[in-house]
């Protein structure tokens, strides 16, 4: 069999390389002379908002000055002074009011700014850190346990160690007033099923970054069904896609962490997984 004559002999390569250097040709182009506008369009700059965060926030700020201060601390990432301000407010306001109308109200503003692309994710994360600090102080003053508007149980799929997506989603849900039960990462199907049956969250979430781990989700869904338990099961992560998630009962697809609160709130409104699924596009586009 004749061998294909494709090989490059080392000497050929070195020869051509050296000759260019000998000639000393300066070949690098003058990149600054090109008009990037004729190659690409900076749509992010095209739609850059000229609105100031403070102006947008104004319409959502609480009237009560103490609550307003707390909301501003959240929005402005003032995690150092927020605890002190919460202590102040506790003198005249209930912990529930402070949490609901101060801390969570501040996060609502942050979410609004994030939705408008004025705040980026890091703002949300750090604002949430601030909110968490303030919340700890307020919760300590509660009589009993804090009542969340709902509970979301979260996990990263069995065999999957990636949890950054889950962690971001947890922060956004917490910032929206949900109680979070975080089972962690690489959580066995058995564990998820047991915990859901035991603790009865309003919503279950799962993230999977690898296609070989996402098969845990339909297994969870089927096992829950066997137990007679039905719960909206929001599935997300790089591996999953809408087609896959909608192929098993309870599966609700989510592409971005920011979609979490919108979907979970529908569960609180009494929508079962079927209703959430069939109205998915409208929910995501804010039209339902």
């Amino acid at each position, binding site marked *: *069999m*004749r*061998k*294909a004559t*494709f*090989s*490059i002999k*080392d000497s*050929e*390569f070195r020869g*051509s*390389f050296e000759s260019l*250097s000998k000639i000393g040709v*300066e*070949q*690098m*182009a003058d*990149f*600054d002379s*090109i008009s*990037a506008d004729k*190659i*690409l369009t*900076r*749509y*992010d*700059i095209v739609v*850059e908002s000229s609105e100031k965060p403070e102006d947008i926030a104004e319409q959502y700020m609480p009237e009560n000055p103490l609550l307003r201060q707390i909301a501003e601390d959240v929005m402005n990432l003032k995690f150092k002074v927020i605890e002190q301000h919460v202590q102040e407010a506790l003198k005249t306001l209930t912990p529930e009011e402070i949490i609901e109308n101060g801390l969570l109200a501040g996060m609502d503003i942050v979410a609004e700014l*994030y939705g408008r*692309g004025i*705040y*980026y*994710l*890091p703002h949300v*994360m*750090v604002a949430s*850190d601030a909110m968490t600090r303030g919340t700890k102080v307020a919760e300590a003053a509660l009589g009993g346990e804090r009542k969340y508007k709902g509970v979301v149980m979260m996990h990263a799929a069995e*065999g999957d*160690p990636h949890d*950054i997506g889950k*962690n*971001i989603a947890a922060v956004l849900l917490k910032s929206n007033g949900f109680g979070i039960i975080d089972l962690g990462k*690489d959580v066995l199907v058995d564990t998820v099923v047991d915990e859901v049956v035991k603790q009865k969250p309003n919503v279950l979430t799962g993230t999977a970054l*690898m*296609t*070989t*781990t*996402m*098969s845990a989700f339909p297994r969870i869904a089927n096992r829950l069904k066997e137990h007679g338990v039905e719960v909206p099961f929001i599935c997300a992560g790089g591996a999953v896609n809408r087609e896959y998630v909608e192929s098993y009962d309870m599966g609700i697809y989510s592409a971005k962490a920011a979609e979490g609160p919108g979907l979970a709130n529908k569960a609180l409104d009494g929508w079962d997984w079927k209703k959430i699924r069939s109205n998915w596009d409208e929910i995501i586009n804010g039209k339902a």
Partner: protein
Amino acid sequence: MATTKFTKMAYDAADDLIFGEAKKPISYGLGLKVGQGLVIPEINFAPRPGSEKSPESLTKEYVDYIATDVMNRAVTLGFPSVQLENEWIFQMSNEPEKFAKPVVAGQKAVIENYHDKYGIACAVRHTCADSRLHEQGMRFGQDKTHNYPEKMIESFEVAADAGADIVSIESVGGKEISDFAVVRQDIRGWLFGIGYLGSIDMEWLWTQIVDLAKRKKVIAGGDTNCAGANTSMFMAGGYLDKDVPRTFSAVTRAIASARTLVAIECGATGPDKDCGYEGPILKAISGCPSAQEGKGAQDAHADLMGNLIAQTCDLWSNESVEYHPEFGGSSVQCWLGVIGYEAALMNASKQMKQDKVLRDIYVASDRFRSPEGFILAYDNAYKIGQAIVEVGDNYYLRAKAAGLKAAELIKESNEKGKLKLNKQEKDTLNKIITDLNSLPDEEGKFVDWALKEYKDVPAFNPKNYEL
């Protein structure tokens, strides 16, 4: 564990950097010649969910379907060479003898057949998984439940014995800190996680991989900061994404290059991993060949430098595609066509003696599309390389220098009115420069501060890094 750190550049000038040629070329596999005048397509794939249910079904998927389809298409279209890459799935890493060995051996047999029959130059890369869990322990003897550090090294043994030509990994040292930092836009934490801890872990890991590769007579290719800089880049996304500003991700990329360099300093020869976008910086410093991916990797992810990143590549990759049917054949065949023709374009430019012109057109396409691509353009990559080697002996200082140089280059172009930045990108850039400049000039002081600052980060255990 002393390694020789780079304190000077392999290339005299940025303009000497070009695709298809490397100062330290390498040959391996079945006639594969890397960095010796031709660019080679590297096709990367994932088995369909369900195929992992047994070693037989997995082997059928990887050998009878994937590898056979790839070689068929390469010969059908006349591609002179091809490299296959396998990123090990969980089952292969968890039970290497049972799941991985037949796949490695089977694929090798397939490519040998095609090489014998047609003469096509080929090789297989096996990228073993870094399965270590930070909270369970990353050094030998720490994770007594799963033994993941030990299992990870065992993977390489099995791969090398069963027929791998080149081994690589996407290691995760420092990721517990970088994940925490990226969502908070904390460049100092990111520097600690990847620039410092990541480099320490790289040295621990790659000393072993290089040693194993020498014993087994396989190529120790290289690493990538996929776990850090790619997380940052993917979160930054494109013009509709508002999670991480692209000035932040650009600086993380520069810092990552100082870390990925450690593999080469331990003795890895390249070509390193396709998703290591920091590759141009490494090539400028070390002269080793690199694999890259861009517009041909759209099957796996989009990026804002689809053309630019081809500028200095020696292998051109599709990153990953799940095996499934398309109109044009199986997915691996379709994407091999995409990357194989791009390699042919680059190789044709060499015949026309216009490779540098093509290189510059690649760069012009995306130089101003995002700060991320801007700093990787070969002229800027070279400057970042210089900043690294200037303080090359110290992991912390060189990573910081890389980050600062990237930030300066971005700022300079923006002030000239060339690289445009949106408001977030600008504010973040200024904060980065302030933050990095506020750090100490001494590694010891930095580490002391960081160990305190980040002690509560979930899964962070200084023992993982012998601190």
